[in-house]
Every structure is written in structure tokens, then in C-alpha cells.
């Protein structure tokens, strides 16, 4: 994570001491960040540590073992649930980011009758208690005789639909907050220069929306990956997801096996992110 020393030196020489706006280089800011990360990661570190605990539960340390990693690896149900969860999260994030961005654009750009009510309706999925939405989905899918015995991944459709329904409003809220800072003169200038609606969207609006889209997609992915309640009510015997599996395993006692699976999940995400950033950096350097 730290840059090599000579690199740092070079940078120090090139740049004066922290300017008033280099918040990231102020001591108090760094301390706040540090405290936040300790707060966020202390439980995670505990969790990883206990995945090596030679006990059936996570309460008292009883010696080091890796057997729970092997056990998690051989637990087909866990791996299947894991695959289902990732599939659902990826598809529902993609769809809800698109739909959410559309809502944000529409609400930001247009004035239309009953806009307030429409906006409120779009916020309903955020407002509704999870369990109520879960039951609504259960009743809905069983009343419409939604097919549940299709082949994978189509048997996940009910869960994916439910996930999109509760995630896209979150994306919309975040993207809309981003759009608030857009200077519409750019759009008008582009149009004056003869750009079509589509080109304006692609070349002017989307680049501005990007941080909002990233934040919204991250949020949607997180919501989907971690949802238990609504998924529980929409899943069947062949469509168990990771949280549903974990939930029923953990209710009696958290076994190190669950921790091991989570630790692997964290490691995979870290590795993927690191690779992506490495590739991005290299591409950036080549361009230069």
C-alpha cells in the first residue's frame, strides 16, 4: 500500500507541504480515517482470526487449525450458495444501476404532472420494512405461479427481480444527488454544437454521473449480496443464497467454518480489486 521511499521523496521534493485543500495530508484527517478504519475492520479481523480457531464455536480461543477452510471448501452447499449469490448480485447490480440512473435522469431533467407522487412511489422500496417486502414477494410469486423449477440461472429469476426492485431506488437517490452538481450549460453548449441527445448523454452527462454510478452500483451490489430477509422468502430448495445458508447455520452458533468462508470471500474481493487497480495503473502509465 505504501509507495517506495525514493518515490515518496521525489514527490515531496516536487510538491510543497500540504496545501489547505490537501485534506488527505492533514494529520487530523488521517487520524479520523484511521479511527474509522479501525472501527470498520476490528470485527473483520476478529472474524478472520477466529476462522483459525480449533473450536466448534467462536467464543474462546482453543488453538490454531486450518481444518475449517478445508471443511468450507468441501461443503458443496456453501459453494453453490456462494455462486448463486454472486450471480444474483452481478445481474441485479447491472440492471438496477441502469434503471436507477434512468429514474435519476428523468427526475432531474423533467418537470411533469404528479412528479411528487411519482418520486415518492420510487422511494417506496427504500421505505418498506424488509420483512414486509419479503412477504409481499412471497405472496406475489406464489399467486402468479412463477416458475421455480427452471434450469440455472433462470431459476434465480424471482430472487433477481426482487433484488432489482429494492436496489434501483438506492441507485437513483445516489445518482440524483450527483446530478445536482451538473452545470446544464455544458449540455446546452453541446446541443448548440449539434450533438444529438444520445451524444450529449454519452459524452457529457455520463462522465459527470460516473462517481454517482460507481457509488450507486457499489451500494446495489452490497445490498444484493447481503440480503437475507427478502431472499429467504423468494428462494426455494434449489436457489439458496449465501446469506440464507449462513443465516440458518449461524442461528445456533457461529462456527469457524462460516468465518473461513467469509475470510475467503474477503480475500477474493481484495485480490480482484488489487488486480483491477494494478491493470488500470499500468494502462494509465502506458498512455502517458
Amino acid at each position, binding site marked *: *500500500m505504501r509507495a517506495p521511499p525514493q518515490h515518496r521523496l521525489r514527490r515531496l521534493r516536487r510538491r510543497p507541504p500540504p496545501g489547505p485543500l490537501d485534506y488527505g495530508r492533514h494529520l487530523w484527517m488521517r487520524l479520523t480515517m484511521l479511527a474509522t478504519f479501525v472501527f470498520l475492520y*476490528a470485527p*473483520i479481523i476478529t472474524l478472520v482470526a477466529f476462522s483459525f480457531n480449533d473450536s466448534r464455536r467462536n467464543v474462546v480461543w482453543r488453538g490454531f487449525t486450518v481444518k475449517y477452510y478445508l471443511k468450507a471448501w468441501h461443503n458443496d452447499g456453501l459453494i453453490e450458495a456462494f455462486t448463486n449469490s454472486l450471480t444474483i448480485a452481478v445481474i441485479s447490480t447491472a440492471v438496477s444501476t441502469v434503471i436507477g440512473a434512468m429514474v435519476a435522469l428523468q427526475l432531474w431533467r423533467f*418537470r411533469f404532472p404528479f412528479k*411528487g407522487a411519482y*418520486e415518492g412511489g420510487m422511494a*417506496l422500496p427504500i421505505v418498506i420494512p424488509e420483512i414486509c417486502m419479503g412477504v409481499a414477494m412471497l405472496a406475489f410469486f406464489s399467486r402468479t405461479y412463477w416458475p421455480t423449477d427452471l434450469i440455472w440461472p433462470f431459476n434465480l429469476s424471482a430472487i433477481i427481480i426482487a433484488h432489482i426492485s429494492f436496489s434501483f431506488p438506492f441507485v437513483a437517490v445516489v445518482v440524483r444527488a450527483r446530478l445536482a452538481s451538473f452545470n446544464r450549460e455544458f449540455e446546452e453548449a453541446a446541443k448548440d454544437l449539434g450533438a444529438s441527445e444520445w451524444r450529449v448523454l454519452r459524452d457529457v452527462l455520463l462522465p459527470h454521473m460516473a462517481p454517482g454510478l460507481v457509488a450507486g452500483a457499489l451500494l446495489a*451490489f452490497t445490498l444484493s449480496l447481503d440480503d437475507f430477509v427478502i431472499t429467504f422468502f423468494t428462494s426455494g430448495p434449489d436457489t439458496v443464497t449465501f*446469506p440464507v445458508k449462513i443465516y440458518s447455520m449461524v442461528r445456533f452458533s457461529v462456527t469457524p467454518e462460516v468465518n473461513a468462508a467469509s475470510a475467503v470471500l474477503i480475500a477474493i474481493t481484495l485480490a480482484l480489486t488489487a488486480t483491477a487497480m494494478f491493470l488500470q495503473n499500468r494502462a494509465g502509465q502506458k498512455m502517458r
Partner: protein
Amino acid sequence: MDNWRKNPRVFWILSAPPALWLLGFFLLPLALIWAYSFGHKEGIIGIAISWTPDNYLRALDPLYLQIFLKSFWFAGMTTAVCLIVALPVSLAITFAPARWKALLLVLVILPFWTNLLIRTYALIAVLRTRGFLNAGLESVWDSVDGVARAVGLDGLGAFTPPQLLYNNFAVVFGLVYVHLPFMVLPLYAALDRMDRSHLEASLDLGAGQFRTFFSITVPLAMPGILSGVVITFIPALGSFLTPDLLGGTESQMIANVIERQFKSANDWPFGSALSFILMYITFFALALRAFFSRGRSAMDT
């Protein structure tokens, strides 16, 4: 803002897919539950929709009103603490060098890709009477105690671990832990690549960091703050796992009661009515917000 008639084609392309989705896959299922809230139980699982207001009247019992109030208090505290923590964090991410930005963002969100239940149990392991936090405090206490004795003062006495779990403090702590990204992400989205010249101008004109923060940064971040408050407060209001696992004997929130209606109490009509009351209230608050922000933007333009 354009009138939709100015460009109906774009308007419909943008609005049709989300509107149809919402209608088919959300409002329709929701309508079922809404109808249940006016029904009564028949036998064990039958629900007859008789358009009776009984479920709503039952919810007006002071017992439930008191639980509603308590839930608002918990959610409000959570939102406030999240905002205080998230503002500096998202500012730091915004002003971080570009290549660090992605990493910091991922580091903030990463813990939340671990299952909520597992995270909550891990939090319990940190906070419990003989947990890691208390173990850390105890060793600090003991060394201070040792030093004090060494220089001839009275010691601090034996360490009594503070009770960090199974009370209302633990609930707010846990809720903040669970909902922090809901505040960080919209703030980051609103602040990223903001026009620094405003801040520079403010500093050049002699306003201190503090004043610049409150009179320039916060207003710039306002849309993000409002979004963050909405998407933190509302989900926090509907939490039931956190109060269940971290709370003491009086940490019941309204979502716990709602959850029980759909499970052990097996009273779907009443559960539906409670859910809808929660929704009416938040809906009203959102409408109020929309009303006020519209008033302001009308003045701006």
C-alpha cells in the same frame, strides 16, 4: 428543468422501463399486502379482506406508539453519528490522489460484503464483557495502574469492564456500523470532483478552515447529505437483527414487532398495517422534504 412536453420521446424512453418495473414487480406485490392490512384472520392462515380499520386502530395503542418513538430515536441517533463520521471520511476520499481513491472506496465498502449476521457476531466478540476491546482497555488500565504504584501513588484498583453489549448504546453502535456506507457513498458521489475554486476563494478571502467547511463544503455537499440521511435513516428505522442481537431487555424496535407478526405471532394483517404506518410516516417526511426543496430551487432559478 424542462417540461416533459418539450421532449416527450426522451421522457418516455427514460420513464417507461423504471415505471413499468416498479408497477409490475413492486407496487403489485405491495398492493396485496396493503389489502391485507385491511383484512382479518380467518382460521390459521386465511385472510379475509373486509376493509376493516381494526388493524390500524390496534396500532394506535400507546404501546405501539411508544415503540415507534423509540425506533425513531434509535434511527435518528444512528443517522447523526453516521453523518459526523462520514463527512470527514468522504472528504478525505474526495481529495485523495486519484489512484488511491478507488482503493479507499473499496476499503470502506469491503466490510459490508461480509454477511451482516457474521459481522454482527464479530462485533459481539469485540464488545463482549471479556471481549477484545475490554481486554485492550484492561491492559492499558493495568499498565497505568502499575506505573502509578511504581511512583508511589495509590493504584487505580481492579479493572471493572464496562458493559458495552446488551443495552441501547450497543444498538446505536451496531446500527452505525451497519449503515455507515449508506452515508459515505452518497456524500462521496456528491462531493467528488467538486469545484475547488469555491474553497480556494473562501480560504483566500481569509475564512478559516472551519468556516470554509461550514459555509462552502457543507452547502456543496447538501444534496449528498440529504440523500445520505434518507437512505441511512429509513433502513435504520427498519432494522430488527441489530436490536435483536446487540440490544438488552428494552431495545425493541418497531421492526422487531413487525417481524414477529409475520413469523411467530402469525398475524399478517396486523404486520401489514404496522408496516404501512411506518411507510406512511416516512412517505410524509419525504414529501415534506420534496416540498421544501422545490420551494428553494424555485427561488434559485
